[in-house]
């Protein structure tokens, strides 16, 4: 099964030095034999989502391994429909929101509009949810839609919460870049099964091998490891290796 990376971003990060560039991301993927991965330009995160989405699309066109993810910043978006429509028309099928990095609460009206507008059109909505309570608020925003939601950044502080949400709800996926505690992968598989866990590295901002080795050495069945390392994301995104 090809190795796929569910969570990366390229470009300048506002809160630290360095510039984890697209080249750096691609080099990381080459080094670690990642066949494809979700990514977006941090310009969309920190400056202008339309401009960032354009950069992301362009990167995806130049580098087929890069599966483009659109982002939207509700802080300056009273009506999310036009930008969402523009992204869908541009070909985006995966969307990501960053309430913690952008400092807005998940209860804002714009957020609850987004899953409703994307249901039936997008393959997944990824939501940054690393603080306690965030995952619950994110899933609440899904309402009754059948849109798959990927919770990004699940970690020790909210693992129990995330598993409580994911266990009964087949719409909920967890990506793994911040799972770091002993047996966290094993517990996740035990509690929610192996089919909705997505390997994410957080590269190039984060060391690739930290997240990778945690899954690689997890005490789980090899078939489950293959699912986490790529099978689940391939199924979610309807991705297959290029011919």
């Amino acid at each position, binding site marked *: 099964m090809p190795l796929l990376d569910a969570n990366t971003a390229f470009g300048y990060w506002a809160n630290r030095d360095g510039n984890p560039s697209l080249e750096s991301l691609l080099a990381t993927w080459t080094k670690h034999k990642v066949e494809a991965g979700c990514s977006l330009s941090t310009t969309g995160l920190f400056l202008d989502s339309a401009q960032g989405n354009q950069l992301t699309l362009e990167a995806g066109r130049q580098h087929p391994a890069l599966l483009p993810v659109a982002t939207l910043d509700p802080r300056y978006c009273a009506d999310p429909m036009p930008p969402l429509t523009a992204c869908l028309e541009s070909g985006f099928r995966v969307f990501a929101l960053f309430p913690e990095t952008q400092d807005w609460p998940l209860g804002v009206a714009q957020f609850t509009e987004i899953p409703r507008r994307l249901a039936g059109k997008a393959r997944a909505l990824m939501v940054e949810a690393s603080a306690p309570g965030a995952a619950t608020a994110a899933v609440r925003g899904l309402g009754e839609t059948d849109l798959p939601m990927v919770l990004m950044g699940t*970690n020790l502080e909210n693992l129990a919460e995330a*598993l409580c949400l994911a266990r009964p709800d087949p719409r909920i996926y967890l990506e793994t870049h911040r799972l*770091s505690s*002993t047996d966290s992968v094993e517990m996740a598989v035990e509690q929610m099964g192996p089919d909705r866990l997505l390997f994410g590295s957080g590269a190039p901002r*984060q*060391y690739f091998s930290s*997240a990778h080795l*945690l899954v690689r*050495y997890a005490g789980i069945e090899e078939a489950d490891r293959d699912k986490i390392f790529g099978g689940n994301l391939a199924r979610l995104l309807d991705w297959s290796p290029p011919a």
Partner: protein
Amino acid sequence: MPVIDCHGHYGHLPYLVGPARIEDIEQTMTRFSLQQVWLASAAALGGDLAGGNAALAAAIAGHPNLLGYAVLNPLQLDLSLTEMQKYLPQRQFVGAKVHPAAGGHPPDSPQMRQLGTALLRFDKPLLVHLRGFDDLEPFVRLAGEFATCRFLLAEMGGFDWWSAIRAVRNFPNVFVECGGPCADQDKIAQAIETVGPRRVVFGSGMPLTSPIYVLGMIRDAQVPAPIKDAILQRNVTRLLGR
């Protein structure tokens, strides 16, 4: 190469993590080729200072690859001084650990200073866990005042590692442990560049952070192999003052 992990926990922790009994810890050691782990009692960190330290001492007796930290608490100053006297003379106790935030204390509170004064007698390092950026300056004041005491900064200061390594740069008695859940690239290389190749040591925080997660940081770090080896094993001898 066999690895010395300077930061682990023994006992039940209030998180959804794997158990941390001695057998679990030793299983993890075998799994990830850890030669030695230095443990602090979760119960002691949670407030039961005497009971927790005693349970750790009993648990690691007969396990030469497991060493202990005596947990201290500035809120329980007299008891902490007693615990220091009880455990630090023992060979199997490698140092002391304090989590000043747990008691609402800044790292340079009068009580922390009293602990520092008492610790000088034993010539063993003090592992300190900070809350974040606001604790850096008080910690640096403490380290400066007790310049002959060796300090180990847990998790390199956490997610504020960038500020932490710069704050302790000019304090040769402060070592930084590279573990914890923050896997920012390239904190290891920046730590080496800032504090030097001899003051960075390997610690995970297990089971709160898996050793393999931190070994992944070392693997990807853009530093020469001999420096990685030093982080994984040799630098602890300097931390112990040898």
